[in-house]
């Protein structure tokens, strides 16, 4: 075992040329796969759902690829390295949440829908208003999630290429955006899925090697790793291992912890880009298998993040992480450099880049499908449009969303991405999950209930975030620096005390769904409900795989 390397205090870590070369290799390799996979892209089912021809295990790996975003890798490792045990809640919440998807949503959704979440929500309610609402909330969730990923791209670039001026970082964010747009336009869902698969395999292997390496340094004794992390973190000390370092300070921060826990566990089953992945398999049994595979991969990966986070605290140290350009988000790359020098750093960074690229591609295809299929195809054209026409609109939407992602990423640059993703989860859990569950399981549920729940959940979540300390008015007590998105400390329009809105907006959306339903005179569409219930449980009449 080698002695720990001295960490350079310069802004660049490793050799930018190596980093760029490894990343370029990945882009070329995956682009080749995308082009190969796209040869059979003909119909709308091909573009949106990869022809429904992926197997359960393939889709499970792709789901893991979609889900293990930069937030999971960079964000959680950083959160654990700096905030200790409180960062571990992200891992646990993100994993347990999959049980909601497995037990209540995945198979039933696969059996009733075609391309998007809105297909299921509007199945037995008034088509146009519900579809519109579901599409708007899909776009909203995708936007927050995109923001998080692009912010991560900026921080990573800052670290790896030594670009610490905003203009240079913005340029690289734009390049990442353009590569992603190319993937989606060329490959559709099929190409995107293969990128997810390749990336998931690389990510799990990369994180696995680092985990074993860290453990080997402590003779596979978790307790001595934890001890070393404590020794290296004099400011936090013992508290690094105990709950409460980040959230235990006040009654308000404790509520924030519950709010975060709620958003994490209920968010996954409402994430539109995850839900859309269930349509890429031929039937509900394969949907079940894919979730099972995803749960195993995701669970094992999150166990790695525990070791990586404490490993970064022990081997890199919190001061070096805070001083690095990407702050908490750079804990994992710094750890890679500490362990394996510039080659491992290059590989891990390329994997992290690939992660961002793949997740952004998945989000973009979901958002574009939702706009083209739901808003353009069903609401504007009332279903009187060919699949080709829809796909053309979807492709244009991809360009627009790509541009939005680039601009948003430039603004959000520098925020902790696990935290930004948690906001996306809060929006998904508020706006989508109540309506999904009600329309699957509650006979009486009707259009007004759906609209109140979706718009109420979406609106309250976004309003509470806008007036929370995340956006304005959070100041570091020691340094006086701003911790909010608006970095001018004179601007403070926050009145909602919590960072995460989940504890208010999620129950509110559930209650609004009930009140809206009970105050509406609209009766249940008995035949449509019968069709939905029978199809969801038996799989009769479900969309079949495309034959080529």
């Amino acid at each position, binding site marked *: 075992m080698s002695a720990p390397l001295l960490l350079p205090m310069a802004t660049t870590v490793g050799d930018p040329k190596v980093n760029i070369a490894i990343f370029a290799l990945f882009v070329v390799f995956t682009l080749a796969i995308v082009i190969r996979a796209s040869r059979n892209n003909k119909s709308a089912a091909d573009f949106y759902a990869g022809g429904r021809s992926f197997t359960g295990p393939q889709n499970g790996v792709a789901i893991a690829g979609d889900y293990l975003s930069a937030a999971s890798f960079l964000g959680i490792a950083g959160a654990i390295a700096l905030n200790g045990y409180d960062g*571990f809640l992200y891992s646990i919440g993100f994993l347990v949440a999959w*049980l909601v998807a497995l037990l*209540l949503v995945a*198979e039933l959704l696969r059996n009733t829908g075609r391309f998007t979440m809105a297909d299921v929500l509007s199945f037995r309610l008034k088509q146009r208003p519900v579809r519109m609402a579901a599409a708007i909330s899909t776009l909203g969730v995708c936007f927050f999630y995109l923001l998080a990923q692009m912010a991560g791209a900026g921080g990573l670039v800052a670290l790896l290429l030594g670009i610490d001026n905003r203009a240079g970082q913005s340029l690289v964010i734009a390049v990442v955006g353009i590569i992603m747009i190319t993937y989606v336009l060329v490959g559709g869902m099929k190409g995107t899925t293969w990128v997810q698969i390749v990336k998931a395999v690389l990510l799990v292997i990369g994180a696995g090697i680092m985990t074993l390496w860290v453990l080997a340094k402590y003779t596979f004794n978790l307790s001595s790793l*934890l001890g070393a992390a404590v020794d290296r973190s004099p400011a936090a000390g013992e508290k690094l291992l105990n709950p409460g370092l980040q959230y235990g300070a006040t009654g308000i921060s404790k509520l924030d912890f519950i709010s975060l*826990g709620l958003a994490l566990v209920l968010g996954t089953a409402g994430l539109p880009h995850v839900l859309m992945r269930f349509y890429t398999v031929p039937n509900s049994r394969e949907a079940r*298998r894919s979730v099972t595979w995803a749960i195993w991969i995701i669970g094992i990966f999150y166990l790695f993040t525990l070791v990586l986070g404490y490993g970064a605290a022990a081997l890199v140290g919190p001061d070096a992480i805070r001083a690095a350009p990407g702050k908490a988000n750079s804990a994992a790359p710094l750890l890679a450099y500490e362990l394996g020098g510039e080659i491992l750093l290059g590989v891990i960074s390329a994997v992290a880049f690939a992660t961002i690229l793949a997740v952004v591609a998945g989000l973009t295809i979901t958002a574009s499908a939702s706009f083209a299929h739901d808003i353009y195809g069903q609401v504007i054209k009332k279903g009187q449009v060919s699949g080709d026409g829809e796909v053309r609109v979807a492709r244009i939407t991809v360009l627009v969303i790509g541009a939005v992602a680039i601009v948003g990423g430039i603004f959000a640059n520098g925020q902790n991405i696990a935290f930004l993703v948690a906001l996306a989860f809060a929006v998904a859990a508020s706006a989508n999950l109540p309506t999904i569950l009600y329309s699957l399981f509650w006979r009486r549920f009707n259009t007004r209930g759906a609209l109140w729940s979706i718009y109420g959940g979406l609106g309250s979540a976004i309003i509470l975030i806008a007036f929370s300390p995340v956006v304005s008015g959070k100041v570091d007590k020691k340094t006086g620096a701003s911790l909010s998105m608006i970095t001018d400390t004179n601007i403070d329009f926050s009145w909602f005390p919590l960072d995460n809105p989940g504890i208010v907006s999620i129950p509110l959306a559930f209650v609004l769904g009930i009140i809206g339903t009970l105050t509406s005179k609209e009766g249940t569409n008995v035949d449509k409900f*019968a069709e939905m219930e*029978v199809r969801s*449980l038996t799989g009769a009449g479900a969309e079949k795989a495309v034959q080529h």
Partner: protein
Amino acid sequence: MSDTPRAAGDPELTTYRDVQLSPDFSELRRRFRRFVFPMTGLFLAWYFLYVLLADYAPGFMSHRIGGNINVALIMGLGQFVSTFAITLLYVRWADQKFDPDAKHLRDQIEGETK
């Protein structure tokens, strides 16, 4: 068990509504809900118990068990174990107990209502 084989092409099952009201389907739905709802309640209760303990009982959670391993870490890893266990249980139940009956009904419907 209610899944006594019925002659294929049951003339009574002409619409989804007929299927929904049939005893076979009611039984299928009842069994699905009897597995899935309690399981959901169980894992959510266990998860929130963990969150609340971490939040409001840090003293208990910080209790050392051996070396630097404390109660919080064990309970956190316990969430992983329970998630894996519930996944295995559900998949086994769904593959063996639920799918055959669902397929049986599906075959009847797709043969008749379309």
